[in-house]
Structure formats: C-alpha cells, structure tokens
C-alpha cells in the first residue's frame, strides 16, 4: 500500500514557476531520495508536500497521505498531520532543539501533547526512545551539551514521538564529515526498518548511495531522471546526472604527481594558538613551485590560522617560516572561502580587476588573456558581484590573484559554498594554475576525498584540545598517488 502519493506538485513565486510538475510516491520500506544541487528545487518539493513553504511561495498539486486527501495550495490542511503522520527532520539538529529545554523533555512533550500519553507514561516512553538510540545519558542535558550526532538522534526521537510513520529528512548531513554522514544514513535506515516510509532530500551522492531505494534527480526545478538509486548511480542515462556523479570527489581520477620546481617556502617546527588554546605544534613542511599541499581536519583545528602564519599575517608561537629570497611579499596570496565577501559589492568586476592590474603594474591585456583560460565570459566584467554565480565569482577571485603573479596561494575552503559540478571546475582550475603558473598551493578542505585526489601531500590537523598539548602531525603522502 502506498504511504504517500503526490501528483503534479508545482511551486511558483509571484506567478513565475520555480518547480515544474513533479509526481512521486512513497512505499513502505523503500526509501526515496531526491537529489539535486542548491537551487534545483528539491527542498521546495519537500516543503510543498509537508505544507511548510514560505508564505511568498504558492504550491499546487494533490497529496494523498493514507486516507487523507490534501491540496498543496492550502498548506493549513497539512498542519494536523505534522508529528502524527509526517515526521520532519530538520537540516541542522543543533538549531532545531530548544536551547533552553533539556533533551529528554523535548521528546517527552511530543509524547504527552501530540500522542496524548499521560505525564508519567510520556516520560517513560521518552526514556525508552532515547535508550534505544543510545542516548540514555543525554536525558537531562541541554542541547549545547550534546554533540551534533547526539542532537540529531534527539531530534529524530522527538520528531517521531507523535507516532508519524513517514520520515522526511531535508539535507540531514549538511556540513558533516564522512563518518558522521554514514552514521546519519544508518540511523535513518534503522528508523525505516521499524516500519513506515523515508524521503531523503540531499545533494550528497555518498548519502544517496548509502540510502539506496529509488531516486529522483532534479535540476532547475525539473525532473532530470528517476529510477532505482543503485541503477541511476551506476548507469546514469542523462548527461546532467553523469556530470553530477563525475563531480563527486570520490569519482575524480587520481592525478599523477608532478616534478617539484624551485622551493617557495619552508616551515620549521611551527606552533600557533588562538585565544589561549594551542592549535598545532611541531609542524614542519616545505613547498615547491607546482606542488599542492592539502590541509584537512575538523573545523576549529587551526587550518585558517596555519594559513595566516604561512602568509605572514600572524606570528607563529614557535618555529619559523622561510620564504624564498627574492620573492615579493605580494607573491604570497590567499583565495577566500566566500567570494562574495571578497569583492567590493557596488563596483563592476571589470573596474575592480583593472584597479588591481594597475596597482601591480600589469598590462591590461593580462586580464583578457586570463579570462578564457579560467573559462570566464568577458561580459561578466560589466557586472557587479551580485550579478554573477558563486562559481564564476570564485574564478574571478582566482583571476585577481593571478594578476599579482603569485608564487604561493593559500586557498581556504575555496569550494565549500559551491555545488559539486562547479566545485570540480574550480579545483581543476587550481590544479592547472599550479602547473601553468608555477605556483605552490596550499589547499584547505574539510573533504578528505577532495584533498586526497588533488594534493601531492596531505597535512592532517588533529582537533584542538583545550589545555592539552598536541603532538606533531607528520606530513604524510596522500594515499594512492604515484
């Protein structure tokens, strides 16, 4: 028996369609994955099915949920089903729990107020739920005392406490590393195994692969491809799906190691801290022209601080950085995480770039030479930063760096705000730049796969520990690179 059936769901903003008709059905025991990039309309689809669209968006279509028949144009009708039929898992579990209420109570209240159990029974049931999820000790903790993974499990327990059979998870692995991502996938599958249906919305191919079931690929508000997840991912029939799958760092071809050029800088026994916390110590490495050093580690481990020290923007607490003699200070440059914040907002991009070229005594035609090499259309120069896409802007940021003729680029999470296909383009360009311009590059990323397939060497930073001392992290060769 079909749990949920949605027919011809559309979403429009002020008369402009942003999601074209999509139909889907959810069967018991078989997960459904909706895959797409940012802006593909995948979250809108989910919100239209749950009746949680923002007020300025209008949905149309029909949703059949068990014996309820609902009109997507009237979201109020969905409200009684929340918690009772549909459990919605939030994107960021930490932000989804009331910061001022203990974890156990947030589950208890759903049993009490939604399912209608008595106070004692609700409390006992909540304790059982948390225990089943391995959270018996989290009952009396506040959300800020929980790890992200624990918060996620509390949110699942709270969302399902009302007795809902269908779980809808919107980007449940946003910002998680690989280990945590698999944990979440297993948790969702375990919930599915208890009966009911599962709908997962994601841009994460690894999550989609692990969830399995059936899949709908969305692009720019239209369905590109549907089918069993395993089949779509193994043999995509559409060009877009192929590009999307090829753009997953796990599927990038390993690159051959290039010969090292002239040495650019040497770091010896570096140590640095921030706010009284020692981030790393005893860190030694050297970099040569044409080489890429990847830096990975969990957030807050000191990746950006390391960049500041190497660039000479912050002094090290111990150790030293030797930059090659004869290189100007401007030969050491940084590529920022958020390109939007790195450009003056109200100036045309052409003007900004011309200023940089002028300041550094570069001929104007250097911009024109670089544009096609970075795959950029000259017409973009007449626009302001708000008028180009994130990927284009990051490539323009790279172009701006190259105007200064850098010998070293510190790229700080340069693709974390880009979708997979654009991410691959930008990383490819960075690799080409290292080779063509003879630059040494330090590439920071939280994605170990991406770093492993891009860098010549990998530097893994351990999480910073308060009060504790950190042992040195040796530079190790990236696995699988010849």
């Amino acid at each position, binding site marked *: 028996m079909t749990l949920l059936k949605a027919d011809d769901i559309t979403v429009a903003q002020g008369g402009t369609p942003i999601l074209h008709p999509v139909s889907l059905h959810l069967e018991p025991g078989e997960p459904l994955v909706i895959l797409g990039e940012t802006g593909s309309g995948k979250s809108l689809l989910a919100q239209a099915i749950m009746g949680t669209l923002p007020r300025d968006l209008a949905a149309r279509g029909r949703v059949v949920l068990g014996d309820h028949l609902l009109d997507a144009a009237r979201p109020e009708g969905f409200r009684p089903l929340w918690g009772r039929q549909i459990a*919605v898992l*939030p994107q960021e579990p930490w932000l*989804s*729990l009331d*910061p001022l209420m203990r974890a156990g109570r947030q589950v208890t209240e759903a049993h009490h107020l939604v399912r209608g159990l008595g106070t004692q029974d609700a409390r006992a049931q909540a304790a059982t739920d948390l225990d089943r999820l391995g959270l018996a000790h989290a009952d009396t903790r506040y959300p800020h005392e929980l790890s992200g993974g624990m918060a996620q499990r509390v949110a699942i327990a709270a969302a399902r406490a*009302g007795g809902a059979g269908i779980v809808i998870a919107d980007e449940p692995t946003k910002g998680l590393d690989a280990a945590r991502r698999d944990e979440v996938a297993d948790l969702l599958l375990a919930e599915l195994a208890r009966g009911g249906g599962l709908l997962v919305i994601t841009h994460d191919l690894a999550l989609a692969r692990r969830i399995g079931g059936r899949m709908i690929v969305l692009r720019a508000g239209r369905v590109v491809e549907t089918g069993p997840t395993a089949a779509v991912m193994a043999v995509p029939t559409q060009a877009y799906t192929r590009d999307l799958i090829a753009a997953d760092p796990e599927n990038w071809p390993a690159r051959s190691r290039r010969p090292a050029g002239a040495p650019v800088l040497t770091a010896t026994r570096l140590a640095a801290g921030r706010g009284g916390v020692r981030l790393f110590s005893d860190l030694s490495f050297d970099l040569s022209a044409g080489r890429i050093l990847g830096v990975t580690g969990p957030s807050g481990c000191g990746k950006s601080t390391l960049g500041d020290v190497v660039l000479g923007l912050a002094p090290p607490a111990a150790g030293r950085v030797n930059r090659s003699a004869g290189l100007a200070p401007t030969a050491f440059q940084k590529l920022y995480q958020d390109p939007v914040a790195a450009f003056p907002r109200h100036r045309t991009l052409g003007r900004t770039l011309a200023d940089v070229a002028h300041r550094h005594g570069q001929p104007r035609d250097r911009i024109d030479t670089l544009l096609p090499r970075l795959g950029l259309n000259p017409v973009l120069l007449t626009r302001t930063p708000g008028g180009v896409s994130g990927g284009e802007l990051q490539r323009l940021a790279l172009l701006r760096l190259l105007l200064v003729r850098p010998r070293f680029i510190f790229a700080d999470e340069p693709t974390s705000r880009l979708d997979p296909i654009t991410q691959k383009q930008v990383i490819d360009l960075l690799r080409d730049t290292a080779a063509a311009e003879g630059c040494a590059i330090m590439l920071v990323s939280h994605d170990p796969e991406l770093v492993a397939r891009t860098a010549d060497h990998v530097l893994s930073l351990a999480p910073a520990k308060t009060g504790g001392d950190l042992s040195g992290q040796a530079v190790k060769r990236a696995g699988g690179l010849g």
Partner: protein
Amino acid sequence: MNTLVTRGIQALMVAVLIGAATFAMMRALPGDAAYRIAAGRYGYDNVDTAAADAVRDELGLDGPALPALLHWLGDLLRLDFGNSLVSGQPVIAEIGHQLGASLSLAAVAVVLSLIMGPPLGILAGLRPGGLLDRGLLVVSTGLKAVPQFLMALILILILSVQFRLLPAAGYGAARHFILPALALALGLAAVNARIARDAMARIGAMPFYSFAQWKGLSRRQALLHHGLRNVSVPLLTYLGLQFVTLVEGVVVVEAIFGWPGIGHALVHAIFSRDVPMVQGTALCLGLGFVLINTAIDLLTARIDPRRAA
C-alpha cells in the same frame, strides 16, 4: 559565585564614584550654599545674613573640599551616611522612610508595564509586519517620545481635571497609585513591547520554533512551551536596564504628584544644598541598579543554562 564577586566590586566602585560626583556637582552649583541650607531650615522668609553665617560656621562650609569628601567616604565605610543638613536627622532614617513609598510606586509601575507591554509585543511578534505589529510600532514610538513629565500632566488633565475620576495628587490610598504608576508604566511598556516583539519575531523565525510545530505541537503549545521561555531571557535582561528609566521617571513623577518618595526627596535636597542627603539618595539608587542587575543575572542564568557556563 563569580557573578557575585564581580558585582560586589562594581557596587563598591559605584559607591565611590557616585559619592565623589555628587559631591563635586553640589560644590559646583552656583549660589551660596549657606543661604540655601538656611532657607531649607527656616523657610525663605526667615533667611538673613546672620542665619546664613551661623549655618556656615556650624557646618564648616568654608573648609577645603577634599577632607570633607574623604570624611564622607570614611563614614560610609562604617555605614554611617551622616545627618541631613536641613533636618538634622540621620540620612539613613530619612531615606528608609522614603524608599518604601518609592519602591511601592515603582513596583506597581513595573507590574502595570509588564501587563501592557510584553503580551502585546509577543502577539505582534508572532506575525511580523501584520496589522498589530505596525499599529504597535506607531503607538509605542509615540508613547516613548512623550517625556514623563508631559505624560503625567496629560493624564492629570484628562483623568483628574476633565473627567474628575482620580485625584491629581496625594498619597495613602490605592487610588492615589493609579496616575503616577500609569505615567511611569506607559513609557516602560512602550519599550517592553518593542523588546518582546523583536525577541518573539526572532525566535519565531528560528529553526527550533518551526521544529516544535513539526513535532505536532499546535501554535499555542509551541508558544507556551518554547516561545515564552525564550522571549523571557532578553526581556528580563532589558528589565534590568530599564531601572535607569524608572529612576529618572520616579524623580520627575514623584515631584509632579507630590509622592513622598526618594525622587521627591532628592529634588528637595538639591534645592536646599543638603549634600549628605543627595549623596545618600544617589548612592541608594546606584546600588539599587547594581542589586537589580545582579538579581536578573542570577535569574537569567537559571533560565538559560548557556549563560551559567
């Protein structure tokens, strides 16, 4: 515990600064203090040079300033606030007498403002941009823009003079509270309502507030179980800061309604250059500010565990 130590040190600094500042300001006022004090003691019609000179000699007003200030600080350490220059009574007894009247007026005003402001603000914040929200913005901006003395006069004109519903001044019966408390409360409620509205709008847009409803809670349940608790933290914090507005208002409103409180006493003490009374009263209000904010710190730390850490 840390909070208490910090606040204790703050209280000490407040005491010293207020003592020195009021002392300096009283000395800097134009006119001969001896005449003013004499006028305060014997009435304006009975002041002559002889009386002023007698006061001057008795109080040593010609003496240097610094020893007089140090003397006051020394007394303060022994919890001795000195005697009123006018009445000759111990300052602490006079303040103790007036403080009760002021506290009861202030308490009634705060309660009234809490009944009027936050509920309207929360209702407005639940639908930002709605009719109530826009209406409340106009009303609260208007009310806040009216100075308290003008508010008091308007209330007197309308409710006492025009409709003869309430007494224009007086002290003792419950109905005497209504006008002065209302004059204070309207200004407080105007800002309370804005704070509550902004907090509610911010919290209503947070993921956890949506998630509470996705769990199956009704709008009402989400508000009662998650909204109010979260709104109360910024509201309480702001209440502590509002104490300044309250003190300012108490001085003005008490003078207008003839309320025998600490604000009224402060104004009279300044007129008659009664330095120990001014110092004592200002000290009392300053320490009250520290005390109220300490209490609010402890309270918000109980509600919000993140602050306790």
